């Protein structure tokens, strides 16, 4: 039951999260901002437009937004956000990571299918970042799974919820830092990618989706927002699992857990947005340094789990 609740929450809440983050940025930069609801208005506008097939594109281009959004939906159902009771067989951390990677891959193929230099450039950069992010993710998963002795997300979150003191150990702090950097890289935020840019020298995500319009673009925009919310929610569940209900909880507990989740994700989003105001985007070829740093942190997290055990 809770997977369905999570999906509904993510479907409705993801654009609001993006709207809230834009609003925070606007206020910090001294602008009025368009309001928290603006992403939803954008989506409504895009859905009403006519779908477009750019010359020379084919089924890969048309399928990409659907698959991307589908992976985001499945991830939203699989990750324990509200309850540790999760979809057995999908909620494995490796599976979730691979699912999100599948989404990026289809989008990159969609970008390549256009045959424009923008599409190719975006796809190439996105794949480079993806390849470099992978070791960090899996090694931090390793670090987190050592205590719970499982890579199942439900088990890891459940273990942390039972023993909240483990959150303030070097293992989890290092892993949290590594995963935070990875989340930023995966969702294309500053300093890895700038979601607001349309300058060809710096674009990654935006370059891939340059040819999309109408409902296709709406799907992609929604899916990016959903991926961001799922990943932030996952971070919150892994490192601040307070309020999450276990299997068989009552309706009230589930409602409370949902509210707590919304608050946690909103706080994380606001922090991320506030951080972006004070940061500049890194040069593309400085990103490997950032990711190497996060990899070292992940490895040190594993090391700490037996250095200091």
């Amino acid at each position, binding site marked *: 039951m809770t997977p369905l609740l999570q999906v509904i929450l993510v479907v409705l809440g993801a654009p609001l999260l993006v709207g809230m983050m834009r609003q925070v940025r606007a206020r910090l930069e001294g602008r009025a901002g368009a309001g928290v609801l603006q992403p939803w208005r954008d989506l409504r506008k895009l859905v009403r437009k006519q779908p477009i097939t750019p010359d020379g594109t084919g089924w890969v281009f048309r399928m990409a937004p659907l698959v991307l959004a589908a992976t985001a939906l499945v991830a939203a159902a699989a990750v324990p956000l509200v309850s540790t009771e999760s979809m057995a067989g999908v909620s494995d951390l490796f599976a979730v990571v691979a699912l999100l990677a599948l989404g990026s891959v289809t989008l990159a193929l969609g970008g390549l299918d256009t045959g424009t230099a923008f599409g190719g450039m975006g796809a190439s950069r996105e794949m480079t970042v993806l390849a470099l992010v992978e070791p960090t993710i899996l090694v931090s998963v390793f670090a987190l799974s050592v205590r719970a002795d499982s890579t199942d997300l439900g088990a890891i979150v459940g273990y942390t919820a039972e023993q909240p003191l483990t959150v303030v150990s070097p293992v989890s702090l290092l892993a949290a830092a590594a995963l935070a950097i990875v989340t930023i890289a995966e969702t294309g935020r500053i300093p890895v990618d700038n979601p607001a840019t349309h300058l060809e020298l710096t674009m990654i995500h935006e370059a891939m989706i340059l040819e999309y319009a109408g409902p296709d673009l709406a799907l992609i925009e929604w899916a990016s927002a959903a991926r961001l919310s799922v990943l932030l929610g996952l971070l919150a569940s892994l490192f601040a699992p307070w309020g999450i209900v276990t299997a068989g909880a009552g309706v009230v507990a589930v409602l409370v857990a949902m509210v707590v989740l919304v608050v946690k994700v909103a706080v994380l989003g606001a922090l991320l947005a506030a951080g972006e105001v004070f940061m500049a985007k890194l040069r593309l070829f400085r990103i490997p340094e950032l990711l190497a*740093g996060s990899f070292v942190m992940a490895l040190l997290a594993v090391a700490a789990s037996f*250095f*200091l055990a």
Partner: protein
Amino acid sequence: MYVQALNLACGAFLLAGVLVLWRRDLAAIVWLFAFQGLALGAMVVVLGADQGSVELVLVGIGVGALRAGLLPYLMRRALVSSGEARETQPLVNVATSLLVVAVLAMLAYAVSQPLVRLAPSPATQAVPVALTVLLVGFFVLVTRRRALSQVVGFLLMDNAITATAFLTTSGVPLVVELGVSLDVLLAVLVLQVLTTRMRAAFGGTDLDELRELHD
């Protein structure tokens, strides 16, 4: 609770050491060094609190003040007067150095296992952390060009040795610690004089330029 606090201090100690390799900004490196000094001080205080030794707690506070206060202050002064803000071209690039650190950490862990097995306790189990920082410091000395980074590398090694001493023996005599710290202070002053002279002679503190003195 004691183990948790000790582990946290050790984690911060290690992280600060690793981050020194990551940042190119010399001012940030000095900040990181100060942070590491703080972590070291905290580590000693935690050890002291656990053993109920007021003396050790005071030593910890002293170590923290020296490493997080005085030394960074001196370095910052040297930095301001040198006018060099960045470690532009380390001999080994940043991404590779970070991967090297990963290997060094594993090496330190493997090497210090016999030592840990002698007297397994939360404190001795953190010895690999100190050893890693020692190796990182050495690596900084080998690969970084700016004189200030070299000083930091040297001080990282010194921090690591101090940490090892406290972790394994639960406290070196105060006199020894004072003596070592004075040595370090002296070294920093010497290096500061050296950097001033180098800048006067060469207009920069790239140590590779010392090669010109060769013939």
